């Protein structure tokens, strides 16, 4: 093997390479931290008690009170779940839980059917993150459906709500202030 002492040119090149490597690693680390921060920023904490602050849309509520803006909603949130306690799921106030891993939650509870009569029906919820917005779907087998797109800005919670039932569709932007 023919060993050759490093020349200054070699040293400079090696140092340059090492320096580039360090810079690269630093950039990667910064990117990771930045992504983490962005991720943390992208997943706001909706927990709190919220008071409805916007006007009620003309076409609200949907059938049997479905989707009506509840005057007050109480949200609890953990890493894996978000729960909303409100009156927006029909005539009776109720607490609805959404898993934040994108899987369905299914249970049984009363709901006003399209005839207006209460019946025990199956309910289902699903949540998914869209950047900093949380998209919530709620369905039940009484043919009530609701999509809420939630976003947070300071102490203002905005819910872009769309409902479906056999009757007319509804669309509304609702704002809530933190109590």
């Amino acid at each position, binding site marked *: 093997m023919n060993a050759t002492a490093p020349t200054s040119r070699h040293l400079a090149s090696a140092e340059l390479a090492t320096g580039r490597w360090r810079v690269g690693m630093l950039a990667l680390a910064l990117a990771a931290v930045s992504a983490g921060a962005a991720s943390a920023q992208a997943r706001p904490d909706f927990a709190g008690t919220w008071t409805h602050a916007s006007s009620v849309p003309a076409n609200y509520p949907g059938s049997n009170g479905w989707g009506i803006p509840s005057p007050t909603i109480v949200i609890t949130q953990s890493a894996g779940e978000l729960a909303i306690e409100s009156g927006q799921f029909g005539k009776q106030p109720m607490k609805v839980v959404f898993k934040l891993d994108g899987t369905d939650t299914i249970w049984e509870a009363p709901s006003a*059917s*399209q*005839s207006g009569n209460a*019946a025990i*029906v*199956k309910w*289902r919820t*699903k949540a998914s993150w869209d950047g900093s917005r949380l998209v919530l*779907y709620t*369905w039940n*087998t*009484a*043919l009530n*459906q609701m*999509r809420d797109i939630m976003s947070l800005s300071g102490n203002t919670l905005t819910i872009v709500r*769309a409902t*479906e039932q*056999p009757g007319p*569709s509804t*669309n509304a932007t609702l704002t809530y202030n933190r109590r």
Partner: protein
Amino acid sequence: MRRTVLSLPASVVVLVGLLAVPASLQERAAAPPGKGGVGDIVGPYEVPDPKWPAWAHPYPKPGYIWGSQGGVFAESPNRIYLANRGELKLPDTVPPNFPGNWGFFNQQAATVPIANMVNCIVVVDGEGRLIEAWNQWDHLFEWGRGPHQIYISPYDPERHVWVVDDMRHVIFKFSHDGKRLVQTIGILDEFGDNDDLTRLRRPTMIDWLPDGTFFVADGYGNTRVVKYDRDGKPLMKWGTRGTGPGQFNTPHGIAVGGSPARVFVSDRGNRRIQVFDVNGRFLDEWPGIAPHSMMMSADEHVWAVDSISDRIVKFDLSGHVEFSFGQFGTRPGYTWAMHQISADQDGNLFISEVFGGRTQKYRPKPGANPTHLVRGRSLTPMGGSTR
């Protein structure tokens, strides 16, 4: 250009009055099937057999009855697909004159009571005997209200069966034998707004161009038509909410045909049919009719089933009414909310009723004027080449 297609104002008033009267009372006052009312009741057809389809009589299972019938498609005289929005529990006692369809009870079967989603897609022969029950797919309809309509593209040599499910916001494409779900258009249970090409919002109906391009009326929730390529890739959409040209309020039916091809859209909430080219350019409107459904016939006419008058109306492709028949009711031959029509190669007409809760088969009267018969489009032979 506006056209007066029906002299409807007076008849609408009469019919609205009729609709406000319970069906049983209205029918006691009505003439026997075949004559009377505001016009010809069964047109060139014979009064249907009230026991068709045989499989549904007496009932799918004891104590239950078919509910709303969303759709029907006659692939041939002996292979008819029925799209059933589930089964409903019968009252403990039914009167002896009960004919066997939910509409007899004067309840709209489309949404209440909540139906059991079983036997949602069945195939029967010309006598109404069960050939296939696609119970393996009943679960697809459990979170909705069942299949909205059912079709086979006339240009598809594989004869896939397409089922529109409005409340689950998708269109299912099944293999011809029903063993495979080949494709789902839209995202199951997710609804999108008018500018979302990935999701639908309560789609209603579908029709095709010969090259497999298809158009979806979308629908109850959105106010647009979505155009897809033959593989189901969305290409474009048109329509906004409103009453102007190119605007919609419940686009519920769609039919494609003519040369050059045009897209005829039932703008039900605005009580008109709008006509477009295949790229969504507005061409015409035909006011005065609010079809639940439309069908392009083999002789290149648009047949529309009017939700206002409960009449079946034949238009030429310029919007002129050539013929109409039908009347509201629940006795054989009458209809209550026709939702899809289909005709086989022998001239038999099939009509599904969402509120009447039945599908009726109408046979041509001997010597019937052939121009008054609904003629189904020929289907590409199985395994054949597309046109």
